[in-house]
């Protein structure tokens, strides 16, 4: 297997769409590329769409799991860059949800030429409060409680994977249903991903972002509250900020129409600006 093929297999990369310009959709913690199934099709007529699973999620190659590489978000960012290289794509629009927003930021700072635009949905550079300077939304004991639960009780928090973990080889229909289900995670790897996500602090990277950035902030988002979105907007020079009517943390799943409309509107405005400059 070639290196390129192993990268595409590792992250279960899916390419769709009719356009030349590329949108890469990156899912957040706790789910997989199926999170984009209500949003990505809206762009397929005019864009090339790239979807993938981070290692430990969806149909990624679990054998590729490396506890050292994936103990930091930089390991996931390296995967994003390798996917772009394997597909030979550049000038991409990167749409990242939640922790994938930060992963995209890290990748863009490392290889800015690859990225035309960053679209960040519910991003957070740090989840733990650092008062009085920063409100992340969580106390350290909240996050430690989460990590403890994920380490010790992983069959419970992921629920539908429990039958596989406990072994149910005599029930093939159940195994098939699980295989075909959306939002799959490997609970053991997910606990390492959770540690890399919720203990991270990448506030220092935000001023280094040179890629034009669009921040989409949900209403009543427990995971990435308004204070965090406002901080991101303040720290990333020239960023555009939009408050969504969508509530919760996953607007692309709960409010796909609004998500599609805002991304489309932003990309149209960017394109119009580019055309204007080119015509001047």
């Amino acid at each position: 297997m070639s290196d390129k093929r192993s990268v595409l297999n590792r992250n279960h990369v899916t390419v769709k769409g009719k356009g030349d310009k590329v949108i890469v959709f990156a899912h957040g913690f706790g789910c997989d590329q199926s999170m984009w199934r209500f949003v990505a099709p809206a762009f397929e007529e005019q864009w090339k769409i790239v979807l993938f699973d981070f290692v430990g999620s969806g149909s990624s190659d679990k054998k590729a799991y490396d506890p050292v590489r994936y103990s930091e978000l930089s390991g996931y960012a390296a995967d994003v860059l390798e996917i772009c290289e394997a597909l030979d794509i550049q000038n991409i629009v990167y749409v990242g949800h939640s922790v994938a927003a930060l992963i995209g930021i890290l990748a863009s700072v490392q290889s800015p030429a690859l990225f035309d635009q960053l679209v960040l949905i519910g991003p957070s550079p740090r989840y733990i409060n650092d008062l009085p300077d920063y409100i992340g939304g969580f106390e350290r004991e909240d996050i430690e409680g989460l990590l403890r639960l994920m380490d010790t009780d992983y069959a419970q928090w992921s629920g539908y994977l429990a039958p596989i973990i406990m072994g149910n080889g005599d029930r093939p229909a159940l195994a098939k249903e699980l295989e075909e289900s959306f939002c799959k995670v490997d609970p053991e790897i997910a606990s390492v991903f959770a540690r890399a996500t919720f203990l991270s602090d990448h506030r220092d990277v935000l001023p280094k972002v040179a890629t034009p950035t669009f921040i989409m902030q949900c209403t009543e988002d427990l995971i990435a509250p308004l204070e965090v979105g406002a901080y991101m907007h303040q720290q990333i020079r020239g960023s555009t900020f939009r408050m969504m009517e969508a509530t919760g943390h996953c607007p692309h799943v709960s409010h796909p129409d609004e998500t599609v409309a805002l991304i489309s509107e932003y990309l149209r405005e960017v394109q119009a600006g580019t055309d204007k400059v080119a015509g001047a």
Partner: protein
Amino acid sequence: MEADEAFCTLFGYLSQALVGIRFDSLLTKVSQILFQLHFSPSLRLNGKSDGVQFTLKSGSTENVQIVVSARAILIENDACYELLVSPGR
């Protein structure tokens, strides 16, 4: 959310106090994180989710382990989620 009498009796809530609030707001913060990041999107994408454990803050402010199974249903053409909540271990 709307809760039936059994839920209110079991977990010490008055049904009126629960009208209009989100189910996940009854959970501890750790459970809210997992609810928002995994359970809720999984439920929306798959139409169901079975046997997931959370910790609920009861009406008497005790933390209670619960197991939740959920289904997407239609009530008068409105998409809703029906949650079956039982005490956990």
